């Protein structure tokens, strides 16, 4: 019998399912640039066989990324806000868990990029006095984000001091 090993459980809540679509779209947009460049090389500069190989290799890589990454992320990205702390988990190949006490929160921001608006999503960013301390929750639906932001903002005001 080995001793029980201490560990952290993941945060309780999943992000919105639409976040998968958002991540896929964003990744696809990112791949467009190299793919377009390689297509030009293939067609205009007459790159021949090497260009064709590079184009297809990039295409396969892009396709794998766009299909695998969002689902992987969806299984990893989680969040939880309790009385005491904000706790998040994010990443896919490399993963990260962040914990920030509510008493040390300095600002609470919500932000929405153009693609995120398309899918009705929003981000919540919680900053602390540390330049390396911000906690992001990506891919929440707008209503949840606004509710969380309002809730955290009121609770942050209640704490005294400059939170350093």
């Amino acid at each position: 019998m080995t001793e029980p090993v201490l560990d952290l459980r993941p945060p309780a809540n999943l992000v919105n399912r639409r976040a998968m679509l958002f991540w896929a779209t964003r990744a696809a947009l990112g791949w467009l640039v190299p793919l377009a460049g390689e297509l030009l090389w293939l067609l205009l500069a007459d790159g021949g066989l090497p260009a064709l190989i590079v184009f297809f290799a990039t295409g396969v890589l892009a396709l794998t990324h766009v299909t695998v990454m969002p689902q992987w992320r969806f299984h990893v990205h989680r969040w939880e806000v309790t009385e005491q702390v904000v706790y998040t988990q994010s990443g896919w190949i490399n993963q990260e868990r962040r914990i920030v006490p509510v008493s040390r929160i300095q600002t609470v921001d919500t932000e929405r990029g153009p693609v995120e608006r398309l899918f009705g999503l929003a981000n919540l960013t919680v900053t602390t006095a540390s330049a390396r301390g911000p906690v992001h929750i990506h891919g929440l639906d707008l209503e949840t984000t606004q509710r969380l932001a309002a809730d955290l903002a009121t609770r942050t005001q209640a704490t005294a001091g400059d939170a350093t």
Partner: protein
Amino acid sequence: MLAVHPVQEVIRLLPVLIGVLFIGRDGQGQIWSLVGLGIAIAGGLLRWFTTTYQITPTHVRVRRGLLNRRELSVPRDRVRTVDLTARPLQRVLGLSSVVIGTGRSDQDHGVTLDALATAQAARLREELLRRTPTMDERPAGSEITRLVPAWIRFGPFTLSGIATIGVVVGSLANIFNETRIDPEEFGLLDSVIGHFTSAPVALAVLEITVLAAVLVAVLSSIAYVLAYWNFRLVRKDGTLHVTRGLLTTRSTTIELRRLRGAELSEPLLLRAAGGARCLAITTGLRGRAAELGSSVLLPPAPIAEARRVAGEVIGEAAPTTTKLVRHGKRARLRRHTRAFLFAAAVTGILLLLWWFADWSAWPWQAALALFPLGVLLAEDRYRNLGHALLGRRLVFRHGSLVRRRYMLSSDGVIGWVFHRSFFQRRAGLVSLTATTAAGRQHYTSVDIPTAEAVRLAEEASPGMLEPFLVRRP
């Protein structure tokens, strides 16, 4: 209330004026230099006319700019550090620059007031930090340490001379370029070059290496003396007070209530010579390189002295010497894997270049030395990796080329990050980061076994992780 025009700003242009008048040669260059000088003087005057500062009971305000008027306003209770710097010319003229550190955000680089009269600058600092006014540059208080001239022996091991050589070579090249003098016209340089080109390769390499080593050692020692002469660390009612410098004098004041810990840093050479330096971990001084100079609590000095100073500053001696918990054999394996992969990648690339691109064989043969060196480095990195929690004091240590020991107050920790890469997850390790508003903003201990990292974070911040703790069989 205090409102002053920094009149003396224009004096900063004196060296430019002198330079142009005496160095200028005939021809186009001189005209452009004069035009440049005119613009510089006009700009300086403009700055002088348009910069004002004001200390009110609640705020420090600086207004500057003519077209693009900027007003910086800092609440006085956010003032965390006040730095006085006097460059040689400023010292001759009895002036000092004042940098007021606020440590609010990254965009805010603090408030800088150039060229106040030194006495006025000192008074300003006293007033900002709400101390009784004193004109004395060397305040009374309990002295923690002062420079012992014997410490200058650590100068050569800091390698700061390398940067100096770079600057010197750069400006020499610039001078030759500007004055259109062919270096080969110089008899001395010419004969030196001639000597090295005619000598056998091995001898020339040896000579150049020895010459460079001596040069670096001498320049590093000079840099040490310039930066740290008259170094003095004093504790005085709630502040730490550092004064130092031979030509450019600096004086930094750190409030003890802003202090979150201390760092011992030992670059490899300095460590081999038994030396270390001590830095403050404090809010208001960001971890950026430019500001690290302000957080020096001890220049390179014997390690025992560095430990004593760190212990005095943080108020307990144990964290500076305590034995740390090692991270186990998986962390060790990862150190070795990395060193091996790096050596293999470099050798592999050079091998390919030799095979396909007709490079000579000696680069990849020389790169083979990376394998044994990598083993030594990996082993040292593993041995230096460690953590501990002593009461409310978190201790992390890592690094080989620069070994650092962070002693951070766990009350200063304002968040935890557990980072796990793909391979770390497979090995059951995490990199634990404590984020803080002080110093480098984040302090990381890599490759701690997961359970140990969770236990450490939970004990350092009691209750914070409680709702999420699970015990796996």
